[in-house]
């Protein structure tokens, strides 16, 4: 999640190892055997367990407090999601007995709540939103690139060439707004928050309810796609001002700050 204590802005070694374990675990899980999911779990939860045991001391007190508070938020959100799933509709209609998607939905709510609470507490809304948007943009870019490469063939006519170029332009048009919003989030947080709220609503319309799609799939998709954008948007809208983060010895000092004690 964060920089190593006293180590500047480079990614911490623990984070690199954990990220590699998650990536390898997911790939092995997808292409070799589902039993390899435990490798991803080692990367996702291992560092936290080691920190709680006191065997890994790479976080400072603010990082630990952010993580602990995020755990409580995840407990609240995950518990509420679980209660809603169980009580909101009759079990046969939800397919609770047959579909593991509801369990995935609750786990995704739990994990995203923890992740966003920790990121918002530690980085603040602007950095969090910028990182979320760059991640979204990168995922879309991979999809668009894969689609373009998959459909590629040498154009035989001017019309095919035109359609090919049009496809590239549409691809850029889909990906670029995420990176533009990531940039504006650091400069104009509230305007970007409003724009993000608009993007979230567009996603609701595009990926929203479809009577042919199981309810659990819809919930899962909405949570994964719209949750991060909407949370980032609300965080940006609550941002008071875009304070200078760092750092010049000649900067004018700010007045004393206040925190509820």
């Amino acid at each position: 999640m964060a920089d190593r204590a006293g180590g500047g802005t480079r990614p911490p070694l623990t984070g690199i190892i954990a990220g590699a374990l998650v990536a390898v675990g997911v790939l092995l899980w997808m292409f070799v055997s589902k039993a390899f999911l435990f490798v991803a779990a080692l990367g996702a939860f291992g560092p936290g367990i080691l920190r709680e045991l006191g065997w890994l001391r790479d976080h400072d007190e603010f990082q630990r407090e952010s993580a602990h508070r995020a755990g409580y938020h995840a407990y609240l959100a995950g518990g509420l999601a679980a209660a809603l799933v169980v009580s909101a509709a009759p079990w046969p209609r939800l397919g609770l007995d047959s579909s593991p998607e509801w369990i995935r939905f609750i786990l995704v709510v739990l994990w995203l709540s923890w992740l966003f609470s920790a990121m918002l507490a530690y980085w603040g809304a602007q950095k969090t939103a910028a990182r979320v948007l760059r991640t979204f943009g990168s995922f879309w870019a991979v999809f668009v690139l894969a689609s373009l490469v998959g459909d590629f063939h040498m154009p035989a006519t001017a019309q095919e060439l035109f359609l090919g170029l049009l496809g590239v332009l549409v691809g850029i048009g889909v990906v670029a707004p995420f990176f533009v919003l990531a940039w504006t989030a650091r400069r104009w947080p509230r305007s970007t928050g409003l724009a993000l709220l608009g993007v979230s609503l567009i996603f609701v319309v595009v990926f929203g309810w479809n009577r042919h799609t199981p309810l659990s799939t819809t919930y899962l998709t909405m949570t994964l796609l719209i949750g991060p954008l909407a949370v980032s948007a609300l965080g940006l809208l609550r941002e008071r001002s875009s304070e200078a983060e760092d750092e010049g010895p000649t900067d004018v000092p700010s007045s004393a700050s206040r925190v509820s004690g």
Partner: protein
Amino acid sequence: MSSRHEVRNHVRHHRRLVHDMTQQELADRVGVTRQTILSIERGQYNPSVGLALRLAGALGVSVEDLFELDREDGHG
């Protein structure tokens, strides 16, 4: 509970005006991340007593010079 306590801090003032130090330099001296120093200066995080003492030591002042308690009583 009619009273509310708030903590005012002067970390930024002492770091910049008195010591001409960057957030990263102060973070390195007390063994935390720059983001933690930033959050303390912004008033988004109240450090533990231990970290407050380390900050005071690094800046060469007492903890009371860095942090002070405001009391806002319900009776004014």
